[in-house]
C-alpha cells in the first residue's frame, strides 16, 4: 500500500474517533453514519432501502414501521412543544411512506427534578395531536435519570401504519422520471427559525410560528385525488435542499428547483439574513415534498389547497434528464448553482 493511502486512512480514523454534533444533523454526516455503521451491522433488506419507514409484510398485510427521537431545545416553542413534535414527526414519517398511521408508542427519558406541570402540558398536547391525527398511543416507557444526565426531557416515538400495495413504491421513489413535478405544501424554514428564535441566548423577540403539524390528512387527500404520486418526503432536518440533493444522489435523473417559486415568510427570511442561514437548509416539521406525474400536478395542488396545511401549496421544480445525480437551483436573479446536502451541523437540537 502506498504511503499516501495509509496516511489518508489514518487521517480518516483520527478525524472520526468521536461522535460529533454534525452526526445528528440530518445532513451529510448523519447520512454517512447510517450507511457506514448502522446499515453495515444491522444489514437487512428493509434497512438497505434507507427509507423514512420500513415496509413489512405480516400475514398478507403490508405495514409501515418507523421510529424517531426528539431532543428539541427549548421544549416549548411558538407553534408547538416537544410532545406535539414527537407525535407529528412519527405520523409524518409513516404518512410520507404512503401509509395510514395507526398506532404509536411513546418512550420518555426525564431529568430528575423536571416539573410535573410541564410534563402534563407535554403529555396533554401529545394526546390532542394524536386525536387530531387519528392515531392511538398504545404503549410506552418512562425512565428518569439523575439531574444533569439529560436535558429536561427526551421523547422517542415509534409508529405503525398500514399501506396499500399500490403505494408501496412511494417510499423509494422507484417510479420517478424526467418531467415529473416537485410540489411542496407551503413555506419553508418556519420550524427551525421558530425554535432558534425561542432560544433565550439569542435575545431576539420574534413571533415566528413553527409549522409543526400532522400531515397524514393532507397526504390522504392527495393519494385519493391522484394515482400519480411518485415520492413523498417530509423536509425536516437538513431542510428542502437536503431532501432533494439526497433524492438525486446516484440516480439517473437530475432535479431543478426554481428559487423564485419558493415561499419563505418575510420574518423567517429576515431572521435567516440576519444570522446568515439559508432557508433551504432549515428544518420544517409540517412540510412534505411530493413528486408527481406532470399531468397530476394540478390535481394534487388543488387537493393540498383544500386542506388547512396546504393553503400555500405550489410547484417548485421538476425532475430533469440533464445533470443526472445532481440537484440544481435556478436562483431568483436568473443565475444557476448546485444544491448540496447540508454539511456539518447548522442548528443542533432542532427536533
Amino acid at each position, binding site marked *: 500500500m502506498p504511503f499516501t493511502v495509509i496516511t489518508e486512512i489514518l487521517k480518516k480514523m483520527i478525524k472520526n474517533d468521536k461522535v460529533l454534533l454534525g452526526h445528528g444533523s440530518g445532513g451529510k454526516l448523519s447520512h454517512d453514519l447510517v450507511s457506514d455503521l448502522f446499515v453495515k451491522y444491522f444489514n437487512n433488506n428493509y434497512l438497505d432501502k434507507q427509507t423514512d419507514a420500513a415496509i413489512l409484510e405480516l400475514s398478507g398485510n403490508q405495514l409501515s414501521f418507523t421510529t424517531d427521537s426528539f431532543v428539541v431545545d427549548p421544549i416549548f416553542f411558538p407553534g408547538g412543544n416537544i410532545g406535539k413534535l414527537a407525535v407529528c414527526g412519527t405520523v409524518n414519517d409513516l404518512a410520507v411512506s404512503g401509509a395510514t398511521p395507526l398506532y404509536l408508542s411513546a418512550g420518555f427519558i426525564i431529568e430528575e427534578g423536571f416539573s410535573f406541570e410541564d410534563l402534563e402540558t407535554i403529555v396533554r398536547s401529545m394526546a390532542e395531536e394524536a386525536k387530531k391525527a387519528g392515531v392511538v398511543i398504545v404503549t410506552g416507557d418512562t425512565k428518569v435519570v439523575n439531574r444533569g444526565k439529560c436535558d429536561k426531557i427526551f421523547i422517542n416515538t415509534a409508529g405503525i401504519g398500514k399501506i396499500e400495495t399500490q403505494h408501496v413504491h412511494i417510499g423509494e421513489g422507484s417510479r420517478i422520471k424526467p418531467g415529473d413535478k416537485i410540489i411542496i405544501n407551503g413555506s419553508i424554514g418556519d420550524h427551525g427559525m421558530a425554535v432558534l428564535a425561542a432560544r433565550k441566548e439569542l435575545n431576539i423577540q420574534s413571533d415566528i410560528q413553527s409549522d409543526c403539524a400532522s400531515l397524514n390528512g393532507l397526504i390522504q387527500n392527495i393519494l385519493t385525488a391522484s394515482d400519480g404520486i411518485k415520492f413523498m418526503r417530509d423536509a425536516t432536518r437538513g431542510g428542502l435542499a437536503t431532501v432533494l440533493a439526497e433524492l438525486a444522489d446516484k440516480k439517473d435523473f437530475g432535479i431543478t428547483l426554481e428559487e423564485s417559486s419558493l415561499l419563505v415568510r418575510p420574518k423567517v427570511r429576515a431572521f435567516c439574513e440576519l444570522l446568515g442561514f439559508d432557508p433551504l437548509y432549515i428544518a420544517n416539521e409540517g412540510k412534505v415534498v411530493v413528486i408527481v406525474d406532470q399531468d397530476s400536478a394540478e390535481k394534487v395542488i388543488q387537493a393540498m389547497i383544500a386542506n388547512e396545511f396546504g393553503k400555500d401549496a405550489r410547484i417548485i421544480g421538476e425532475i430533469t434528464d440533464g445533470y443526472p445525480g445532481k440537484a440544481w437551483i*435556478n436562483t431568483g436573479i*436568473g443565475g444557476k448553482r448546485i444544491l448540496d446536502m447540508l454539511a456539518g451541523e447548522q442548528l443542533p437540537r432542532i427536533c
Partner: protein
Amino acid sequence: MRFIDEYRDKELVLKLSEEIRKTSTKPVSLMEVCGGHTMSIQRFGLPSLLPVTIRLLSGPGCPVCVSSRKFLDQAIAYSRLPNVIITTYGDLIRVPGSTSTLDREKANGADIRIVYSVMDSLEIACKNPDKKIVFLGIGFETTSPASAAAILSAYKQKISNFHLFSSHKVMPPAMAALVDEGVKINGYIAPGHVSAITGVSIYKDIAEKYHLGCVIAGFEPVDLMEAILMLVRQFEDNEPKVEIQYRRAVRPEGNIRAREMLDEVFEFRDDWWRGLGILPASGMGIREKYAAFDAEKMLTVEVEPTREDKGCMCGEILKGLKNPKECKLFAKSCTPQNPAGPCMVSNEGACHAFYRYNRNT
C-alpha cells in the same frame, strides 16, 4: 423585504449583466477580496451571468482561511486548560488544527461555546467568575471594533476573567502583497463592511501606486453586478480609482468612533497570512495598557508543533493563483465534512463556496 428585495431584482441584475457584456471588450481579472462576496457570488450563481472576458478571483478576505494553523493549535491548547471556557464564532469550530479541531475537543469534554457576539462572552464571564473566558478574535474591521468594545467594557466593569486571543488583521497590506507577488489582477472588488469602518483612504495607495481600481461593493447580487460593471468601465477606460458602490453603508470617511476604539485597544504588529507569509503591520495585537485581557499574555500554554496538510492549496487559492477545482484534494479527500484546509471549512472560504454551489460546472 426592504433593503434586500430591491437588490435581488432579476430585471435589474439581467440589465447589469447585459451592460457588462456590452462594455467588456478585453479579458479582465477582478478579485473579490472579501469572503462574504465570494459566498454571495456563488450562492446567486453570478458567474453564469458574466461574459467569458471576466474572470473572478477569490481573495484573502476569509478570516478563518488566512489565520495560521498555529492560532488554532493555540486555541485548542487553551481549551484543554482546566477552568477555561472558549467562546468563538461558529466558523472556527471545524477548522483543522495540526492534530485536532475545536469540535473534537468539545466532544472530548472541553467547554467551547459558539457565540453570535463577543458581548455574549462578557456575559458568560460574569456568570462564571471562577472560570477564565478566552474569546477567539478573528476577522478584519468588521469584527475587530466589537472585540475592542468588549475589552473596553471589561476594563470599565473590571471583568478580570475575560481574555481576547487576537488574530485580528487589516486588509490593505494583503492587497498590496498580492500585487507585489505578481498575482495578475486588474481590479479589486473591495470589502463593503470593512470599508464602512475604515473609509476609502486605505485603498488610495492601491489605486495610485499599483494602478488598480478598487470598488467598494455591497453583498447583494445587484451590488456585485454594479461593482463589476464599474470596475470593467475603469479598466476599459484605463482610469483606475477608488469608488464606492455600497453607498448606503459606506461613507468616504468611514466610522471614526469605531476607529478610535480600535486605536485605543490595538496596535499594529507583523502577522502571518496563509499563502502570503508574514506581512508587516498587518495584524492587531492588544496594547500593553490592556494586557490583563490579552490571552497570549495571561495564559501560558504549550503549543504543539504546527503541521500543515501536504497537498492543500489553500495558500495559492487565497492568492487567486489557483481555482479550488485545480487542487488535487478538492472534493476528494477535502470536503466540508472532512476538510483538509481552512478554505473548505468556513462559509466564506472559496473552496467551501465552490464545493457547495459550483462543484460540477
